[in-house]
């Protein structure tokens, strides 16, 4: 990224490449997409994230031309593309199963789309060579898909879908079939290729880590609706609903009632016999309004004594410890029965753990540590 931040969605002048306008898609009585509007800009790496059945694949198939919206319109570069068949769209798709043609070599697979445009032979050869180089597949050009590894197949699928230099590339769970290590390497490769080619990428995934890693913006979907569309850090740090907070990463949800207490600060009365919590919120809450405080485990500090200047502190005992190598997660049970997770980084090698099971501990967090959400 260069010094000027890439954020066309913040620029009111910017024209979106893709525009969903009140799109609804029904299959029989089932509503897969429910009156959804969304703008995606050029050169974006946009992730559609959600559990299976949330409608993210339907969104992608509508962009690819395999489904048509029941209502509303989809624009690509200002033109309505509803009803335009897949072979007439400047959109290419990388399929979840890769859909490589088993009877053709890697070279012929990549050349497949170029040949359909009846381009001159030298031009096709040059483009295929370029794609093979981009995806580091030169050595495998003569092989058939069943003669190469899963990671190589994934790169062939990518090369094939990029060969026609589409305006928009759709990636349907592109890394789902790879093992974790390879997946992480490939994520960076994908970002690299996306930057090099300057193509707009729309990726569908159910893996939140993957979406956070690769995407410039993430759309969290549920039941055919967009829950939140924002940059990965905003999705993580300021989710707009309990659903989004809960779907992305780990979170503690503390439910209670809000009382205004100073500017943008609220007192939250939660469990009986517990001290009220203080938290800031840009969204205003009325006195006595039900609310939920979402706080990430890494923002909760664990200590043996009550920290002197802590605004929010609760006491409990260690119920469980999950050691993950780089971090440890402590599950702390409060007297009311609520379990709160706190994370500490294991910054020192083989240091003795300060706390063990059933130890009484204090949990504390700052007034800005959590996000106050409406129920």
């Amino acid at each position, binding site marked *: 990224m260069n010094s000027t931040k890439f954020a066309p969605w913040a620029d009111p002048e910017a024209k979106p490449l893709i525009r969903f306008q009140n799109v609804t898609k029904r299959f029989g009585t089932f509503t897969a997409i429910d009156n959804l509007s969304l703008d995606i800009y050029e050169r974006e790496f946009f992730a559609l994230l959600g559990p299976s059945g949330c409608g993210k694949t339907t969104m992608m198939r509508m962009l690819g031309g395999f489904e048509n919206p029941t209502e509303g319109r989809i624009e690509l570069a200002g033109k309505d593309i509803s009803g335009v068949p*897949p072979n007439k769209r400047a959109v290419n*798709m990388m399929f979840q199963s890769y*859909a490589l043609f088993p009877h053709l070599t890697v070279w012929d697979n990549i050349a497949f*789309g170029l040949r359909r445009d009846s381009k001159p032979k030298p031009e096709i050869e040059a483009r295929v060579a370029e794609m093979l180089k981009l995806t580091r597949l030169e050595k495998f050009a003569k092989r058939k898909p069943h003669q190469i590894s899963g990671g190589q197949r994934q790169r062939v699928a990518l090369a094939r879908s990029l060969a026609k230099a589409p305006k928009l590339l759709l990636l349907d769970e592109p890394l789902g079939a790879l093992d974790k290590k390879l997946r992480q390497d490939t994520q960076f490769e994908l970002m690299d290729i996306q930057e090099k080619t300057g193509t707009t990428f729309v990726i569908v995934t159910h893996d939140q880590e993957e979406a956070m890693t690769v995407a410039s913006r993430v759309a969290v979907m549920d039941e055919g609706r967009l829950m939140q569309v924002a940059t990965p850090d905003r999705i993580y740090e300021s989710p707009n609903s309990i659903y989004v907070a809960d779907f992305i990463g780990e979170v503690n949800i503390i439910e209670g009632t809000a009382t205004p207490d100073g500017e943008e600060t609220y007192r939250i009365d939660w469990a009986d016999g517990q001290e009220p919590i203080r938290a800031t919120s840009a969204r205003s809450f009325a006195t006595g309004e039900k609310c939920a405080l979402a706080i990430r485990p890494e923002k909760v500090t664990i200590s043996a004594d009550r920290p002197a200047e802590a605004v929010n502190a609760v006491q409990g005992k260690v119920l469980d410890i999950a050691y993950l190598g780089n971090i440890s997660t402590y599950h702390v049970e409060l007297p009311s029965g609520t379990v709160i997770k706190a994370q500490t980084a294991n910054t020192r090698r083989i240091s003795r753990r300060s706390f063990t099971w059933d130890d009484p501990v204090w949990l504390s967090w700052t007034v800005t540590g959590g996000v106050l959400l409406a129920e």
Partner: protein
Amino acid sequence: MRRFFLIAVPYLWLLALFLVPFIIVLKISLSDTALAIPPYTPTLDFSAGWQGIKEFLTGLDLENFVWLTEDDLYWKAYLSSLMIALISTALTLLVGYPIAYGMARAPEEWRATLMMLIILPFWTSFLIRVYAWIGILSQEGVLNQFLLWTGLIDQPLIILNTKIAVYIGIVYTYLPFMILPIYAALDRLDESLIEAAEDLGCSRLSAFWLVTIPLSRNGIVAGCFLVFIPALGEFVIPSLLGGSGTLMIGKVLWEEFFSNRDWPVASAVAIVLLAILVIPIVLFQRNQQKQAEAEQ
């Protein structure tokens, strides 16, 4: 040792049901016809000992095979059989492919029923089904009466006892053998491959030519062989539907055996037919093997 027995079972089966009968037929084809029971000489007489075996061997010759080249009836019958088998294989493919394609594209819950419908005719005797075609195709038959009734024709068509009737009979009888392997190939075809082809710029039709057809090639080849091989030696269909005008080697073979009672010549005809059939059978085996290797 256990492995040896396991392998021995199919080999013994082949030995008893193929190799032994084949040697007997081969031996008869090298004999001379005779007015006796059985109607050929020499016969092997073990009671005469070594001398008997020697006499038996000197009595064998290739006379009958030479005879097959001298009378033009035989090579004409072989050629005509090849032509009929080739044309009817092509026709069966033309009829069978769309049916297999339709079955593979049908909703999941329909497929078992459709498969049942394809196999259903096997529940009735093959002979009865061929006789039924006589009832349909004859001049007073169901088809002609229907066409006359609709006014499409004013003279009954002559179909029975022509080659057309033979083609109809073969296509009808062997259709399942064409449909099943093609259906199996198309059923395994991943729908996303077609979508990928369309995504990369193919129309529906060109996606069919460039993806569906090449990927069902093995099914097509298997189906063609499964129709061609039995059709080449077919006897019942040409003799019931083809009339005297249709020359096929299966019919010639039957007549040599049962009308002429010339077992040695009939055996020679059978041996040559087998030799001709070995070529497509070997090709078929190689296709199957290649397919199995590709799937690994």
